């Protein structure tokens, strides 16, 4: 039987997209979902399950969709994944579950992410998600008032807080910013992940009894030691990899050069696109250069388009093939008019007499031998320097873990990149302190933050219930 084409998700038309922050991908209808689900071969080796960092029983839930039993599909996904409405939208599926699907041989892997999203959205819409959540809340055991602190409210912190609250612990979550959600809230834009979905998950935490304290910067407002002495039996660190890297080239402090974090935080968290109704300003030029090739770069470029930039370019030092961004977002960016300047490396920012950016000196690159990650290494082409005119630059070349906790808590060992070192069960070098997510992995993904978070919560529960701490 010839394998049919993937059912592609409907998307907002481009003209509408570039003028609003509305979600771009519209999801499947029930018919579309069933049709796509029927494409899965239910192949016995099930490589897709191994491809998913949390091991969702993918063929099982897809089979239920094919049968029209969405409730069972939802329950199967929830066994392993607490936030399918989020991961269905943002997982880099082509590197994970879909990347190893046997149908890749025909270049038509099952659209696992889209199906997952469909089921999660269905459950939210039908009120099923809420019903199941209420049951979990009502059935919450009591655990002798044992207090646990969760630091950071991104996907790792959300997972640990929910797991431990369900086990009956009294969980307090501390977040430095004024709104919880981590990167899901301040980084990933509305047009890719509507904030109401993140808010739903946060609200669920509250109903599970988690006490969320915003505006608390651990390391400053309280130290880890304070928490341990203040009656918290264990402390979980999920503080992410939020400190932006700068290239370290001349001119990077010029006016109108942003880190992607600053740019996206102004827009997403502070709603600068509604300035002056909202007080936080943002500057958007006519010709914007975004430096980098990951999800963060695509998000910044597509946001710049929506803010009204006339021309938006991605400057990336390798080729499109090596770009770490989700494939879907690269396509979306192109559809929205983002242009790609590949094999291009900035070497100097140029400003006018007022130190306002006017251009970027770049050098052309060529690909050499594969490096440690297997990607071909870019090398500069001598004498190929040129000036790329730009009045706004957004730097999206990566981030490292925030050094604050390590600086203020020397007991917690970190590696040379600043990542917290843990044992295989996510215990840090400080007793009663655990960590997961980007602070341990470096820049990873939402589902990996969640997966490691789940393992950390299991370790915490075991260490407490077996009297180890």
């Amino acid at each position, binding site marked *: 039987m010839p394998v049919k084409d993937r059912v592609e998700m409907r998307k907002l038309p481009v003209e509408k997209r570039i003028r609003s922050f509305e979600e771009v991908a519209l999801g499947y209808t029930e018919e579309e979902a069933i049709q796509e689900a029927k494409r899965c071969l239910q192949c016995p080796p099930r490589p897709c399950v191994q491809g998913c960092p949390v091991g969702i029983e993918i063929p099982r839930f897809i089979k239920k969709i094919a049968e029209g039993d969405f409730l069972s599909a939802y329950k199967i996904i929830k066994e392993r994944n607490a936030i399918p409405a989020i991961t269905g939208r943002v997982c880099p599926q082509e590197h994970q579950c879909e990347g190893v699907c046997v149908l890749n041989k025909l270049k038509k892997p099952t659209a696992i992410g889209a199906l997952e999203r469909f089921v999660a959205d269905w459950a939210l819409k039908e009120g099923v998600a809420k019903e199941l959540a209420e049951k979990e809340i009502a059935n919450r055991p009591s655990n002798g008032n044992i207090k646990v602190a969760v630091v950071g409210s991104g996907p790792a912190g959300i997972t640990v807080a929910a797991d431990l609250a369900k086990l009956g612990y009294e969980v307090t979550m501390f977040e430095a910013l004024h709104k919880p959600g981590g990167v899901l809230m301040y980084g990933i834009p509305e047009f890719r992940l509507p904030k109401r979905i993140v808010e739903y998950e946060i609200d669920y935490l509250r109903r599970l009894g988690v006490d969320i304290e915003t505006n608390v910067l651990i390391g*400053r407002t*309280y130290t880890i030691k304070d928490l341990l002495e203040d009656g918290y039996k264990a402390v979980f660190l999920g503080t992410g990899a939020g400190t*932006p890297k*700068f290239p370290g080239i001349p001119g990077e402090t010029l006016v109108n050069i942003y*880190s992607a974090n*600053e740019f996206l935080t102004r827009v997403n968290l*502070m709603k600068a696109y509604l300035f*002056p109704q909202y007080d936080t300003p943002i500057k958007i030029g006519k010709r914007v250069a975004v430096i980098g090739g990951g999800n963060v770069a695509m998000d910044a470029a597509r946001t710049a388009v929506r803010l009204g930039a006339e021309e938006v370019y991605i400057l990336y030092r390798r080729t499109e093939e090596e770009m770490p961004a989700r494939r879907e977002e690269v396509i979306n960016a192109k559809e929205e008019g983002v242009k790609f300047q590949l094999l291009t490396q900035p070497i100097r920012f140029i400003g006018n007499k007022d*130190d306002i950016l006017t251009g970027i000196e770049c050098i052309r690159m060529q690909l050499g031998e594969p490096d440690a990650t297997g990607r071909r290494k870019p090398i500069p082409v001598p004498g190929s320097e040129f000036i790329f005119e730009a009045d706004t630059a957004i730097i999206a070349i990566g981030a490292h873990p925030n050094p604050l906790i390590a600086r203020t808590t020397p007991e917690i060992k970190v590696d040379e990149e600043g990542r917290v070192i843990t044992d295989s069960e996510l215990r840090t070098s400080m007793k009663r302190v655990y960590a997961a997510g980007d602070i341990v992995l470096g820049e990873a993904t939402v589902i990996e933050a969640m997966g490691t978070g789940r393992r950390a919560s299991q370790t915490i529960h075991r260490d407490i219930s077996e009297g180890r701490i």
Partner: protein
Amino acid sequence: MVRQLFRLNEIVEKKELAPRIKEIKVYNPRIAAKARAGQFVIVKVGEEGERIPLTIADWDREKGLITIVFQEVGVSTYKLGRLGVGDVITDVVGPLGNPSEIEKFGTVVCVGGGVGIAAIYPMAKELKKAGNRVISIIGARNKDLLIYEEEMRRVSDELRITTDDGSKGRKGFVSDELRDLLNSGLKVDRVIAVGPAIMMKTCADVTRPFNVKTIVSLNSLMLCGMGMCGACRVEVGGKTRFVCVDGPDFDAHQVNFDVLIKRLNAYKAEEQLALKRFLEVKA
């Protein structure tokens, strides 16, 4: 059991120190418990508010209060200024930044300009406590705008005053007084200057030929205050540093003030537009 008297972030006292310069005491025991000289908070007023940094001018650990002194210059500070006793500030996070280095250095000159005087006050106080001889130079445009004179007198061995128009103390800038002081041959072990960027730059230029270690507390634009955005980055010693987590105090002789000043003006047009709109709507 301590009875909770106030709500978190409630304003419990408010004073007008000078035209457009206000002092408020805010109930936030967790910040009051940790605050040290040189640190700041980030506040946000209302759902639509922006995050702005303000120095912790004083604190009362027992009562759980922090003191903030601010000048109304734009939308966010105007909004804060309109809150009264009993109102709650939507968001306050802190204490942020590294505490100032407080040791026994010997003779320390504390230079404060404008609202910077309120920021230098806790430093002068702690330096005095640490056994230093503290000479303070404070200045403002005119005598009506001079704040914290009595407070500074209390924590200084010697207090000198300047005003741009000569309405009080010496006519001139704090940097002029600093230059004369250094020229007089007095042995100074350290200078600390807090105020407008241009004032700190001038002070750095004044002390450079004398080779006196000079510390400034930088007031770059900020957004997150926790090292997550890089909005506050400055060039110090040729390297990019984040004021909110690597500072705010830096060696004045290493700071590229020109870039700092240019970056402070990045949103001038937007700020003026927003203030105009705010004053029209709220008038």
